[in-house]
């Protein structure tokens, strides 16, 4: 998990270690540093925050899809704006999860992503599909 919200990361770690749904490898608040680590440890799935002040998260996404294609990168965001979601998928994200979702949903989406699927939070899908239809 790459996110500057320490409380959220700690909570996720606890959740996964207690439920055993996924093996938690670690978290890092800085995308640039995280990329190096991720390339080395090669996780199945990465949860990457879309907006970290002072960092370019999309650059990290591109680097990861280039150098670490087997690691599925799922974006983590508070927004449901079509532009962000579309950009994420364009640049190689395997999914887009909204922070407001229940933790169980977040967990399931991550598991699906790790299994090779493309995932999108239900709350975001409606707007994404509608907006996407409009931009045809």
């Amino acid at each position, binding site marked *: 998990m790459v996110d500057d919200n320490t409380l959220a990361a700690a909570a996720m770690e606890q959740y996964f270690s207690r439920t055993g749904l996924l093996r938690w490898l670690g978290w890092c608040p800085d995308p640039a540093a995280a990329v190096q680590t991720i390339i080395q440890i090669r996780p199945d799935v990465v949860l990457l925050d879309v907006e970290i002040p002072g960092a370019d998260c999309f650059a990290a996404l591109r680097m990861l899809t280039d150098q670490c294609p087997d690691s599925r990168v799922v974006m983590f965001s508070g927004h449901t704006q079509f532009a962000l979601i579309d950009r994420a998928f364009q640049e190689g994200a395997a999914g887009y999860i909204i922070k407001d979702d229940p933790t169980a949903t977040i967990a399931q989406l991550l598991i699906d992503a790790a299994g090779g699927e493309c995932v*999108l939070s239900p709350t975001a899908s409606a707007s*994404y599909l509608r907006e996407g239809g*409009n931009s*045809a």
Partner: protein
Amino acid sequence: MKSDASVAPVPMWRVVIIEDSPEDRDELRRLLLKGSDRRYQFVEAQTGAAGVRAVLEDPDGPPDCVLLDYTLPDIDALEVLPAVIGPDGLTICPFVVVTGIADMRLGPAVLRAGAQDFIGKDWMTAESLTRAIENAAERWAMTRELQARAAALKAGQHQLQLAVELAGLGVTRIDYCTNTVVLDSIAAELFGLQAGVPLPRSAIDDTFHPDDAAEISRLMNHSLDPAGDGCFVMEHRVVHGDGSIRWQSVKKQVVFGDVGGVRGPVAGILAAVDITERKAAERELARHREDLQREVETRTAELAASTVALHTSERLAALGTLAAGLGHDIANLTMPIRTRLELLNAACTTDGAREDLAAIREALDHLSNLSAGMRLMAIDPERGEASPPAADLKLWCVETSQIFRAALPRQIQLKCDVPGGLGVNIPRHWLAQAVFNLVQNAGEAMAARPAGTVRVTAEAATSDAGAPVVKVQVSDDGPGMSAEVVARCFEPYFSTKGRAICTGMGLGMVRGIVDSAGGTVAVRSVPGEGTTFTLTLPAVVSGQAAHANAALMAAVTVKSQREAALAMMFLGQLKVRTSRHLEPSVPEVSLWVVERPDPALLRAYLGHDRERRVVVLDRGFDSAASDTGGQKPWDGQGLNDLNARMTVLSPSPSPGELRNAITQAIRASAPTALGT
């Protein structure tokens, strides 16, 4: 002649004697020389013609005097004189006619002919002759002087006349003895009276405008008072015979004199000039000045209002930023809290603990909704795309009711009655901000009351054009609005409140939002009963895919993550189950979104079931070639008859293209599967 400086120079006169008799000439010379100690220089001529030549052609100029014999051999004096008269009607020098004829009647004739004097030979003496030429010279000089002055006077008069005419001055001469007036042509035009003929004084008085008459009378009497300066100066109106009114600037000067032993006005000169246009221009200017003043005041007020509005917007913008930031921070905090709660829930064993957790969870949900509501409120209303449509009104209401409740005074209740299954095609933050405004207005209207209720409801309906709409209503049981306020309430800047942050833009914004969403807003209010605002908005046609679609299954295998995600989401929205694996034997309908289809696999799949359809995203496919009827990569492989059941899209289709292709393919293969 030399003149001695210590003695006055002896005067010398040049005298021309025109006399044919030598004895008479000698006599004249002798008498003159005897008559004074003046020195003389004589020029003599014997004929009239010679005499005239001597006078006119003398290189030293005309002589000081000429003695002219009446009777000359060629012409007589009466014929000589006209020859020596200058252009001004005066002889060019003094002439004294000497006559031997004892006819006294000659004298006047000679004087009339232009001579200054005449003298008889019989009675002339040295003294009388000398006196005669001296008098003649004096008379001549005086006459010349008089003529010059008369000419100067005439020229001066002429100039004055010209000046008066140029100035447009009308001059009226008043005779106070006969009480008549004479107007020149300009004055006549100004007063609307006749020119050049004496008119009674009352003729002018009658032209005075009744409104000015009193003041004119007062100043007039003052000017006729012999103790005063006799001046009358005024600007007043006159009325012409045709009813037209003109403004005049008038100056009168009265001359006083003795009238029957008493000092009184004798004559007067009145000069008047038309200033009607000037007066009109002055009025125009004053009006313009007033207009300008009003304009400046209006603009200043507008500027003040704009400045206030600007400051208010700046405060609002700052608050908006703050609210957005807060919303974001709260969301960041609620996520870990929620996660921990779930963990606690899983770990807790007692009912009491579970209850506590449930309560915390509920409070957290409220907080979540509050922060979501706050973020919705903070989104810039200018940006319509910043949030998705409120496709589920019930859900939207749950989220936003927190913030609506926060906008109401404590004693006012909020009741939300929004059924499920309704959706409106308007961005969530727009709907939130519009309804928030209406709820807040309702709350403020009832703030002074001990209790009240604000209701937010929604129901499905059909517009006049037959399109599905949803009516969202905000109603209150407050004091209501008067008809006048109802008529004006949507006007920008119109406000009946004195809020700390009040732009008067609230309802204007609501209307703006509703208009942008393609809906309408209406208000109904009964004073004393309450107000209801109704937002009529286009309904969202929610996916009608029924659970019957559980039977539909699609295979999605696309290397591009984006298209894969899109396809799966479209299908998910259509409630079609998806699988990432190609299975030729799939019940009911199968849909492939395939990147590089293997022809054998395609044949097997499509040939197996006439209903099957395939949507192809072939990276090796050249859409241009297809447009011109070019060959597809799998041509010639026995799939020609199957082309109709394949939809080929260019690589990287837009989400809309992909969705349309998938939807069409499903419809084509299973028309009833998708419902409406």
